[in-house]
């Protein structure tokens, strides 16, 4: 025992500088996260491959055989699969656009009220209610829309058709001279979809607004900004990418929504912007749900081709959102 008390610290710090064995937990966690990340890519690739392979027979059919075997493609009316997909893409985008136009300003308003205007107690309660709304299944929204909302909206539609019918959007049916009398029109589908996507957009934007740095809010207030000016100066610029992200989440849900549209909309195929007439529009998802139960193998292939179209739209929307977010990243609040 020649070592004295003072030498002990030297002994304790004698950790070798050479590579040491990695701990099990470290390895395990690294492995789990790698597998999870890969799984996402594999799933995406699998879905894309499935869509392409299954849709291939329908997409490459040139002999007219497909039209003969799928009863909802009517060559005598000049229809081909590509044309029908075109109509449905139009209907999907139109109805989702209506939903987004209604839902985005409302959601941002609600989120802003919760984050910056409401007294704290009310804000907490309201936030909770919004989260509850997000939990309602879409089939319930569909039922509610078809039974409760449509009759309420109908008089309003009549008024729009009578007074603002000269606007192409609200044009009445040229044959009857009135708008649809059932309310089963694109605008109704858009409104119910809007109500469905408000919770998700609100929840995300609220979180973003709440994270606005107090520093920036105070900077605006200290130079004489009103509350609204402070919001425009500090809260919106900071939350810009978050708002876009939230909107895209909502759009994603609206694009893919099946049941609510299926239960509300009177389906049809056209490139018409008349959102108060029934039987003119349908969405891809609702159309797949409508046609799938009675489809033969060629029909399924044609429906999967439509699914592929929806997949491509969603992909494009997300890429667009990414691009918008990154466009002015130099000026973003992240630094």
């Amino acid at each position, binding site marked *: 025992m020649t070592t004295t008390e003072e030498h002990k610290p030297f002994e304790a710090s004698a950790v070798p500088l050479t590579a040491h064995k990695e701990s099990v937990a470290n390895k395990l966690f690294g492995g789990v996260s790698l597998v999870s990340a890969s799984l996402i890519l594999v799933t995406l690739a699998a879905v894309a491959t499935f869509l392409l392979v299954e849709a291939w027979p329908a997409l490459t059919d040139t002999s007219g055989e497909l039209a003969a075997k799928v009863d909802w493609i009517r060559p005598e009316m000049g229809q081909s699969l590509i044309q029908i997909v075109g109509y449905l893409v139009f209907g999907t985008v139109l109805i989702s656009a209506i939903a987004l136009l209604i839902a985005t300003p409302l959601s941002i308003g609600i989120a802003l009220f919760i984050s910056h205007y409401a007294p*704290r107690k009310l804000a907490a309660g309201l936030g909770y209610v919004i989260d509850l709304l997000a939990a309602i299944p879409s089939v319930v929204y569909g039922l509610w829309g078809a039974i409760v909302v449509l009759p309420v909206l109908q008089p309003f539609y009549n008024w729009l058709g009578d007074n603002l019918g000269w606007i192409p959007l609200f044009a009445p049916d040229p044959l009857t001279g009135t708008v649809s009398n059932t309310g089963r029109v694109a605008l109704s589908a858009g409104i119910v979809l809007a109500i469905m996507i408000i919770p998700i957009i609100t929840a995300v934007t609220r979180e973003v607004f709440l994270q606005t*740095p107090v*520093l*920036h*809010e*105070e*900077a*605006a*207030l*200290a*130079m*004489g*900004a*009103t509350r609204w*000016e402070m919001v425009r*100066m*500090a809260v919106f*610029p*900071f939350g*810009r990418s978050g708002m876009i992200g939230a909107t895209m989440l909502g759009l994603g849900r609206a694009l893919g929504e099946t049941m609510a549209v299926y239960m509300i909309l009177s389906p049809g195929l056209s490139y018409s912007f008349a959102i108060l007439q029934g039987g003119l529009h349908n969405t891809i998802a609702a159309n797949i749900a409508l046609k799938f139960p009675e489809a033969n193998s060629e029909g399924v292939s044609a429906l999967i081709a439509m699914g592929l179209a929806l997949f491509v739209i969603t992909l494009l929307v997300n890429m667009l959102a990414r691009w918008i977010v990154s466009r*002015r990243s*130099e*000026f*973003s*609040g*992240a*630094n």
Partner: protein
Amino acid sequence: MSKRIDVNNLNVYYSKFLAVEDVSLAVEPNSVTALIGPSGCGKSTFLRTLNRMHEVIPGARVEGEVLMDGENLYAKNIDPVAVRKHVGMVFQRPNPFPTMSIAENVLAGVKLNNGRISKSDAEGLVEGSLRGANLWNEVKDRLDKPGSSLSGGQQQRLCIARAIAIKPDVMLMDEPCSALDPISTLAIEDLMQELKNEYTIVIVTHNMQQAARVADRTAFFNIAGTGQPGKLIEMNDTATMFSTPSEKATEDYISGRFG
């Protein structure tokens, strides 16, 4: 135009908690007044009552009066938003708006309340304000770059430029150098000496040397203990305060015996 401030029997509350008790003091125009004291003594809280920024915190309220050239900032017909246009503020951490360019940052306050400004006036104001903040030469070639691309000291001077662009009467500074390096600190201290020719300046600082360097008059705030309200102990010419303070507590604080 520089204005004087008279504070009479001011109490500040956070809900029911009395944070600052019975402060009466006078701030002369065209001078730098420093508020010093240990952490939690209420000097920042008091500073914020001079432009009603404390009202941003829920539950905060004051009793008493703050007179700016004789006009009570807490009179019923006074709009806090208008008060802040006359009493500018610079914060502890530089806070330029990250989404705005350097020039936009300077003009941010001018464009509030539907304020419009012609392009040539705007350019003149940007240059004048940045010159006033001793920043023009460093940024004149990159006015369209984001404000956050500047160094900390430059950002703080950008915030000062932003504050003087709205031509306030009084400038409040809440520990403006505490996040800066010594050279940037010196730049801001020099700037204060120039700014006091046009503005009344009130600065909160933790750094007693800084108070001794920049302030014409110094006020010492103290707190008796946790949960007790902050109080103004004494206020005097800076030279007197640092050589022959009349209160024992001031002498202890200044000589570094506590705080």
